[in-house]
């Protein structure tokens, strides 16, 4: 009989960790292929289509980078939150709240101010909006021990409805012909694009700076140290005298604030007005969870995993059109990847040996 024996592994090297990730992704790819096969699509074709659609053409690359911007911003923010085992599933709502704050700022002050003032201002407003929406679940968790997964999710729904309330009600634009949506932001508040693309470079640069700053915060500062201790063992955090409320507030302000940045980027870089919630964010908040996880909660790696998943989004769009697959396909791909990534951790932490025995 074949016996499976597992023992703990104590020698986890970065290389092994990286290889486990790669193998997990490959295993996920196999499963995704099977799903495609069942859906009546040639998996090799579909997968090659995904990657050629995203990285294979110049247009694809430009689109991939465009979509990577919000993913990197939100993903880096989530690495910080997840380090503290604060399961922020509410980036979607925080992003929208950032966009709402930025819209208000842009519409009210944008006309009178030059670009170099209004652009930083709307980003600041977005950070504040996302951050405030982010600290609500932090307060609820620490003060009232309300599970943050549920509260952040509920706040997503609430924020989306709130946004709808604004754009069909008081903020409804005169130029929208009765459709929900605000007027366009003034030109000074619109972000510049790299010519021939939709890449709003200001946000891209901001995203990369954020990733660097966050990795310094996590690995070099006292705050980062406290976040890691709390995440590893909250009881030890208590024993060490770490102020949970303060730590959670700061980390959720940052995590939500970065999602807010992403919202501003989408608003001022792509849409130029506040419209339907689903158009501002097409599920970036959720995809970013996998971005953070694939990055092993390291903000710098999140830049690369953000680009990778942006590629899947863009490629997913491509096969939706060429193969007639539903939009949900991307979610299948994401869900499968995520589940294989966490399953892979088991094989990283355990040594598995097969033994033949007679009994």
């Amino acid at each position: 009989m074949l016996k499976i024996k597992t023992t703990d592994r104590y020698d986890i090297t970065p290389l092994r960790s990286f290889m486990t990730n790669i193998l997990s992704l490959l295993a996920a790819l196999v499963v995704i292929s099977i799903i495609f096969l069942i859906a009546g699509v040639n998996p090799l074709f579909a997968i090659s289509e995904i990657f050629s659609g995203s990285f294979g053409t110049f247009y694809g690359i430009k689109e991939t980078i465009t979509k990577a911007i919000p993913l990197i911003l939100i993903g880096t923010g989530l690495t910080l939150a997840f380090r503290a085992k604060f399961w922020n599933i509410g980036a979607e709502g925080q992003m929208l709240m950032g966009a709402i704050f930025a819209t208000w700022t842009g519409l009210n002050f944008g006309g009178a101010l030059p670009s170099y003032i209004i652009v930083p201002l709307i980003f600041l407003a977005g950070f504040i909006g996302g951050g405030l929406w982010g600290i609500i679940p932090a307060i609820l968790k620490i003060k009232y021990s309300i599970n943050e997964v549920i509260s952040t999710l509920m706040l997503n729904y609430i924020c989306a409805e709130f946004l709808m309330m604004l754009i069909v009600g008081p903020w409804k634009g005169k130029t929208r012909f009765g459709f929900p949506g605000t007027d366009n932001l003034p030109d000074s508040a619109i972000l510049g694009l790299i010519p021939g693309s939709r890449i709003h470079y200001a946000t891209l640069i901001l995203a990369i700076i954020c990733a660097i700053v966050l990795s310094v915060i996590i690995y070099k500062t006292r705050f980062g140290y406290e976040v890691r201790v709390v995440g590893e063992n909250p009881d030890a955090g208590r024993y060490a005298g770490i102020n949970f409320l303060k730590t959670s507030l700061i980390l959720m302000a940052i995590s939500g604030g970065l999602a807010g940045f992403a919202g501003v980027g989408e608003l001022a870089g792509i849409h130029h007005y506040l419209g339907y919630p689903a158009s501002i964010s097409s599920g970036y908040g959720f995809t970013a969870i996998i971005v953070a996880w694939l990055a092993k909660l390291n903000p710098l790696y999140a830049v690369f995993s953000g680009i990778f998943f942006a590629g899947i989004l863009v490629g997913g769009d491509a096969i939706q059109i060429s193969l007639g697959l539903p939009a949900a396909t991307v979610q299948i791909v994401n869900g499968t990847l995520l589940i294989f990534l966490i399953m892979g951790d088991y094989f990283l932490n355990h040594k598995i040996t097969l033994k033949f025995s007679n009994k």
Partner: protein
Amino acid sequence: MKAISKSFHGIHANQDINLFVESGEILGLLGENGAGKTTLMNILYGLYQPDSGQIKINDKTIRINNPIESINHGIGMVHQHFMLVQNHSVIENIALGYKDTPFFFPKIKIKDKVEQFSRQFDFHIDITKKIWQLSAGEQQRVEIIKALLNGADLLILDEPTSVLTPLEIKELIYILREMKAKGHMIIFISHKLDEIMDICDRVLVLQKGRIVGAADTKDTDKKSLARMMVGRDVVFNINREKLTKGKKTLSVENINVIGDKGLLAVKNISFELFKNEIFGIAGVSGNGQRELAEAITGIRPILSGKVKMNGQDITNKGPRHIYDNGVSHVPEERIRFGIAPGLFLYDNAILKQHHLKKFSQRYFLKYDQVKNHTKTIVKEFKVSTHSINNQIRNLSGGNIQKLILGREISEQPQLLVASHPTYGLDVGATEFLRKHLLEIRKQGSAVLLFSEDLEEIFELCDRIAVIFNGEIMAVLDSDDKRFSDIGLMMAGSIRIDPMEKQEC
């Protein structure tokens, strides 16, 4: 059991062990912490599989793959840490393990049977109570009922007395003798010589996973057993110099603290602690020691009363503020509180200290200093690790403990609150640690030592308080003659008026 061997990560926990028991016999298994007693019994109970060797019952070789098979072979085990579901009632716990529990309405249907058993052995337990409402002795009786109901011929008791008061120990011994008279076999695991001599017919001595001695208790004495157990003649002989106590460091005034169960765990306790003094708190664990330690160090809120450090009020000030006032803490549940398992050794070496100027500059940590500091602790406290860039979860329990001790002691605290600091350490490390505690005492620290080990308490402490059920039964100098009755104080039967203590 024949030629049993078992190793973990290449370390032999059991090597070539032979053991037999006859019916109506109580066999003692003697050995220090970590000698491999529990591992051996877990093999017999089917929790671990031996790497080699055989188990026979009535001359038939059997293989025990899991606890069910073990129960079916008539083996019952009372673990050192009770295997009880705290939030469930007694009857639910019994129904969980009883093999004839019916599927429907289990609680009602087995009630009679349980009550009959508990009458037979004179257990007095309310079976509708939740486990957490019971005393340790009562919980142990629940465990024994569980084993007996399943028809255990052989009962293994792992360190059964470690959580009991002297009175409860007497009751346990009575129960064991009853069982013996009825023909049961009992394996009694302990590291306490007195009990083994008192209870057992025969004794096996384990050391570092091997059997190093066997004897009938009537043919041997404590001294020779002790020699076998430790492998050499050791009598801890630490010389505690007489020191005159310095100025008052800590004062605890009438504090009340709520325990995990929402009940008062510390009741109106007051005491004072001075420089150059080790103050011991003796008592059976679970009588409020943990809550008291956590309350003083700020992890647990104090309901009423005051704690002052050098005259400054530190009541409920939070662990960091209290640490900054010179209080270090070696917590009782070290793995739970003391470390962040996935972080590196050097991260863990500054758990309580990371905010100090020495290790951090405004917002940033000074990792160079942190690493140097860690290296010092590792060297001084002989923590065995291949590198300080190692996740602390990869270390053994003893080494983790050494790191925590090093972290809390090396800074020469004004007050050290230490809960069971030597529990689980080997002989050498224990000796080292005890000397170190006396050393910091000499240099002016005050130490508040919680321990169950009376030997340790009497060796180290200048004054000793006995705690029972959240109250202090007596505070006396350690050489006070009235301590001949410490057993009764620990059981709450004698209380010495606090007024008397003032005169000593």
